[in-house]
């Protein structure tokens, strides 16, 4: 993964896909549906936030499990960086959803099961960061937050994918029938939507990778500093006894 972070090809792919998403997402032919009208184009921007969030949080929980398996400091950095990026995506998803809902469902928050589920899931992840910040010891923090991360992910899946399907929801594909129903068969939308999901997710991965790399740099600097302090202490301790010996000699 470390190696991949420094590769250029997937970053270029990110830019190409997102430029395509913006151009085609705004200009391509879309189905003419009542109420939604042109806002159907939000599909390429709002929904990829959630897809991206799920994928980033999956990476986060995978590295949490790997940390518990083998406590390497890097795995903890991966876990927290992916969780960060995932939560940013989730917040953008909630805000863009509220804006979209205001003009299509009549109110920014209608207590839709999926809206509520997403909000609860985000709060659970906020608690993850609060938990981390409340622990001083690095290893303890990494271990406890890795365990919490697994529980948070285990709560996320039913909140977003199972509970909204058990009741009626304004979101398409909920209330019994999975899938995209209304736009399911429209290939025009799919041609933009799938590249959009990949592009936005890669952007999240890019940001997470930058965060991880700066954390590794910080860690390295801390190590160097530590070595410096130790070396200084050593060299300071070494020449000290000589003048003492000499002064002891002259006194005699």
């Amino acid at each position, binding site marked *: 993964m470390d*190696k991949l972070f420094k590769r250029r090809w997937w*970053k270029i792919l990110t830019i190409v896909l997102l430029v395509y998403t*913006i151009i085609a997402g*705004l200009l391509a032919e879309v189905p003419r549906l009542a109420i939604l009208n042109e806002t159907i184009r939000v599909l390429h921007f709002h929904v990829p936030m959630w897809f991206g969030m799920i994928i980033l949080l999956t990476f986060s929980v995978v590295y949490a499990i790997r940390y518990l398996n083998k406590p390497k400091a890097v795995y903890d950095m991966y876990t927290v960086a992916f969780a960060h990026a995932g939560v940013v995506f989730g917040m953008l998803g909630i805000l863009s959803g509220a804006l979209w809902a205001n003009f299509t469902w009549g109110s920014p928050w209608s207590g839709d099961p999926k809206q509520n589920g997403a909000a609860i899931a985000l709060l659970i992840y906020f608690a993850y960061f609060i938990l981390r910040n409340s622990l001083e010891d690095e290893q303890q923090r990494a271990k406890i937050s890795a365990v919490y991360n697994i529980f948070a992910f285990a709560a996320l899946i039913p909140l977003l994918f199972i509970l909204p399907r058990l009741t009626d929801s304004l979101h398409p594909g909920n209330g019994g029938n999975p899938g995209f129903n209304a736009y399911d068969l429209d290939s025009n939308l799919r041609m933009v939507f799938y590249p959009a999901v990949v592009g936005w997710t890669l952007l999240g991965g890019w940001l997470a990778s*930058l965060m991880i*790399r700066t954390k590794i740099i910080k860690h*390295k600097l801390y190590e*160097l500093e530590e070595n410096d302090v130790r070396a200084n202490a050593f060299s300071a301790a070494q020449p000290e006894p000589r003048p003492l010996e000499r002064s002891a000699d002259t006194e005699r």
Partner: protein
Amino acid sequence: MADTFRQDGKIYVVVGVILLIFGGFIVYVISIDKKVSRLEKELDIREE
């Protein structure tokens, strides 16, 4: 006089503005990426 650009409710202008802003952010991200790479080189951080 750039008639096609003024047609269709001028949505192209919107696309242009969004692309410009998006491009600005991407340039910013790339510059951060390069700075991080340079620091990694200075500190001699090896790939795992």
